[in-house]
């Protein structure tokens, strides 16, 4: 029963601590990523030519460079220009920016799918551009983008496990420390895998509820 004792006294408290750190990474990153994604998506469709070019470049960079490399740049690279971020802040920044780039793709696609006629109708009523985007287009586009954005949040939960690479010790980081001390790799990483599975499952359920709540006639996803 020495195993059980080990799990109770060492594994459980360490993983619980890591789990909280993971949650603290995921929740703000998901929120900031979504906000960035909506803003960038709007700019990529309705911005001036220069703004569009900047936004497109942002997406190309942050989708094109591996996330670990991005994290290294934020954490190890920025000090060269005298900017020092804590591991936690660097991780949240990296996750938000990367996630925002992906969200913006879904938002952009959804914005482009809104029929032009509705914009003509809004304009003919005297709407200005900003009001038209916020009252007519975004409420529809967000409904259409939700499945894609939800998927991106599930991804974020999993790639939050990269934070330990820049010494932000979250769930995976704690697991790694425990495992290298005890050599019980299999047991510990099975537990950790289960933890992520719980997080992603809970997130799917929440996202599913959100989709149902926002559902309107005419916006159903036709499941065959």
């Amino acid at each position, binding site marked *: 029963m020495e195993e059980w004792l080990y799990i109770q006294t060492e594994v459980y408290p360490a993983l619980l601590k890591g789990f909280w750190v993971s949650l603290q990474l995921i929740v703000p990153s998901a929120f900031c990523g979504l906000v960035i994604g909506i803003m960038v998506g709007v700019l990529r469709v309705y911005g001036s030519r220069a703004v569009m070019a900047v936004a497109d470049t942002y997406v190309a960079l942050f989708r094109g460079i591996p996330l670990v490399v991005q994290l290294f740049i934020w954490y190890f690279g920025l000090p060269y220009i005298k900017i020092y971020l804590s591991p936690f802040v660097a991780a949240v920044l990296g996750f938000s920016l990367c996630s925002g780039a992906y969200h913006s793709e879904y938002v952009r696609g959804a914005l482009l799918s809104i029929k032009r006629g*509705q914009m003509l109708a809004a304009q003919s*009523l005297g709407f200005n551009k900003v009001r038209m985007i916020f009252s007519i287009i975004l409420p529809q586009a967000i409904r259409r983008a939700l499945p894609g954005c939800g998927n991106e949040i599930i991804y974020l939960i999993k790639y939050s496990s990269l934070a330990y690479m820049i010494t932000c010790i979250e769930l995976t980081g704690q697991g790694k420390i425990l495992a290298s001390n005890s050599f019980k790799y299999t047991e510990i990483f099975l537990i950790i895998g289960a933890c992520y599975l719980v997080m992603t499952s809970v997130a799917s359920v929440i996202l599913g509820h959100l989709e149902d709540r926002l559902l309107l006639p005419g916006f159903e996803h036709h499941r065959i």
Partner: protein
Amino acid sequence: MASPILRIENVSKRYGKKDVLKGASLTVHKGDLKILIGPSGAGKSTLLQCINFLVKPDEGRIWLEDQEVHYAHKRNLYAYRQKVGMIFQDFNLFDHLNALENVRIGMVKVKGMAKAEAGERAVMELERVGLKDHMQKYPAQLSGGQKQRVSIARALAMDPKVMLLDEPTSALDPELIGEVHAVIRDLGNNGMTMIMATHQIGFASSLASEIIFMEDGQILERGTPEKIFFQAENARTKEFCSKITELYGETR
């Protein structure tokens, strides 16, 4: 004679090398119902969209009640568009809003009215077009004729001085055309000023104060329904009228 409510002078539009509108002029008095007819590609939709600057004309000037519209001046443009209602062929309702919200949103977001007050007005307008029992339905739950009537209510709620209607019934099944025509007829009887493009010449001739025949970006002929349909001077007008009478017949 009283001064015109809307005056359009020499409006032109080109796309690339193609002149889609070649200097159209139009004077509309209060209570007029001008009907635009002409073959596909004549420029009827372009003219209507130029009138409220959904398409920016390359040339030409427009006055509403003796005030020239300066469309480059955004405030001026948005204020002008509130006074010019537009009805589209394919309704263009806002898909995420139910009928009541569709009618209310312009009053709230553009005119800055309080939601409750705008809601009461929206109910009134929907009753007027006979949709009292369908106010909570979303566009996806309405028939074409019902959608077009919601869109008319939505335009009316802004208290327009002039309504522009671009083939309001040509996307509708024949049995639904009548209900929309009834609403438009009612508007005309109540003195609404309208410019409407349509192929329904039976309906048009029973209501129009003037028929305007367009072809190839130009206004070729204009006059009373009797003149255009029975004593047209221009050979093209005659040809078009006989063709369209054959196609659409005498409609209600």
